[in-house]
């Protein structure tokens, strides 16, 4: 190769590299200029109004499970069927807040009342997170999930008292195609990912029927276990992590007459409930973990105090350990 042709080749390579870098830079800047708050609003709208069916892979603390999901909004009411493709073949059929859990292996149906929580997702970040200084939001990059164009939204905390969220949003609709909850070291705690999904209002009623006959099944219902009343309380947390504040205080009276105080703290994304009741004969203390939820119990001055939330263990420990009567 002559000196001139070598020079031309290098020049060409350099030019290609510069163009590629410029394109990458433009793409990055274009993403940076997208408002994460707008994406959150689109997500909130999509979750509340989109009908879909597909296959979901859920991973929680190292275990995974495949689920078939049919989700239809009828006059603003969620109608949903979620069927586990593994294990005992559990099926959940939900009509609004009425939930039917079908357990084929136990030939049983359990009827429960719910309070608007999602069957699939842990609480997703709300649009208010935009105004929460404990988190940074950014639109990181584009990609494909379940065969659809998606953008990756990152909700990153500034300390280790809350989890990070990474959400892949459908570029057309804003629907969350993949959600991840990550701990302080970036380890995956929970992932909900659509392997395939189709959006359609045209879902037949039959698609929401039980997939097996319920003949001979025994039906159970859990009786109403407590009544909740708003109150003022002299309980408070001496050492709340930054950004958390009390958003509700209630007493909850159980069927046996036992009374419990419940205080809910929130930082705008994560919520922590603190349950306070007089200690029984058996006082308990320590952690428990379920999915992205942690709980910590401690006995103090004749009270059993338990904090529960979708936060790291140190957060529930810190809050439960610093509850005091003022």
């Amino acid at each position, binding site marked *: 190769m002559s000196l001139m042709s070598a020079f031309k080749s290098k020049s060409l390579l350099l030019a290609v590299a510069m163009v590629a870098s410029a394109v*990458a830079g433009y793409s990055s800047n274009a993403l940076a200029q997208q408002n994460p708050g707008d994406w959150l609003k689109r997500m909130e709208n999509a979750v509340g109004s989109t009908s879909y069916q597909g296959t979901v892979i859920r991973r*929680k603390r190292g275990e995974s499970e495949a689920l078939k999901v049919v989700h239809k909004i009828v006059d603003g009411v969620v109608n949903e069927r979620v069927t586990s493709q593994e294990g005992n073949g559990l099926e959940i059929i939900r009509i609004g807040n009425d939930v039917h859990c079908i357990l084929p292996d136990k030939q049983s149906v359990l009827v429960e009342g719910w309070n608007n*929580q999602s069957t699939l997702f842990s609480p997703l970040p709300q649009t208010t997170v935009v105004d929460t200084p404990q988190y940074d939001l950014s639109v*990181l990059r584009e990609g494909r999930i379940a065969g659809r164009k998606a953008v990756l939204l*990152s909700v990153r905390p500034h300390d280790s008292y809350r989890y990070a969220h990474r959400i892949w949003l459908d570029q057309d609709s804003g629907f969350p195609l993949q959600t991840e909850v990550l701990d302080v070291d*970036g380890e995956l705690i929970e992932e909900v990912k659509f392997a395939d999904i189709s959006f359609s209002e045209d879902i037949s*009623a039959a698609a929401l029927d039980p997939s097996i006959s319920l003949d001979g099944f025994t039906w159970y219902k859990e009786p109403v276990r407590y009544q909740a009343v708003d109150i003022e309380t002299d309980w408070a947390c001496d050492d709340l992590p930054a950004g958390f504040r009390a958003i509700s205080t209630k007493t909850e009276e159980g069927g046996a007459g036992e009374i419990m105080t419940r205080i809910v703290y929130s930082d705008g994304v994560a919520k922590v409930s603190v349950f306070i009741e007089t200690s029984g004969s058996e006082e308990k203390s320590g952690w428990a*973990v379920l999915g992205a*939820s942690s709980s910590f119990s401690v006995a103090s001055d004749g009270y059993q105090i338990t904090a529960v939330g979708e936060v790291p263990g140190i957060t529930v420990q810190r809050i439960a350990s610093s509850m005091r009567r003022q």
Partner: protein
Amino acid sequence: MTGTLPGRGVMNEALRMQISAFVDGELPDNESELLLRRLSQDAVMRQQVAAYLDIGRVMRQDRDVPGIDRLRGRIAAALGDEVVADPVEEEVVGMKFMTPASGIAVAAAVAAIALVGLSQLSAPVDAGLQDGAVAIDLAPAYTEPTAEQVLLNSPSEQQLDYMRRHGESDILFRMANFEVSESLEVIEPDGHLVTGDDRSATPEDGNPAEAGTEMR
């Protein structure tokens, strides 16, 4: 949101997003190299990044710095384990900044973050007071439960009840462990659920669905 760091200028949105993506391992290689090259040449930016990553908290022996383990991992990948194991000496890093070769420049720029961050690990605690950008957390030490503690403490019935009251939606887990208990009330099938076979049954079969009670 824009991070304002007293005495250190304002960190712009694009840079903050780049750093965030870099720590997450999401920044493409070509952009990572550009970012690190800028860091290698701009001391103010290095300080901004360190403050953004809240590295001052490490210096104050507050162990919880989001992403610090991954950052260490990336530094290790770029520079070798010895840098992570031992705090970086300032003059060594300074020499590396002067090296023009691209690969070393990248490594040196990563070390720039290490310089601000990891070298502070060995600094006296009082030095942390010079860092006015980060609030001092005087909270007592709390420790994350170990995996063993978590495994030993699968939720009791009472804790599951608390989680339900809190709004924990992991019904799949609860149902996997479902046991019929005396507190449950046996009820008649409510007719809201029908299978395809039942749906096609005649009204004479007495199927409640045919009586118009279906809730959809």
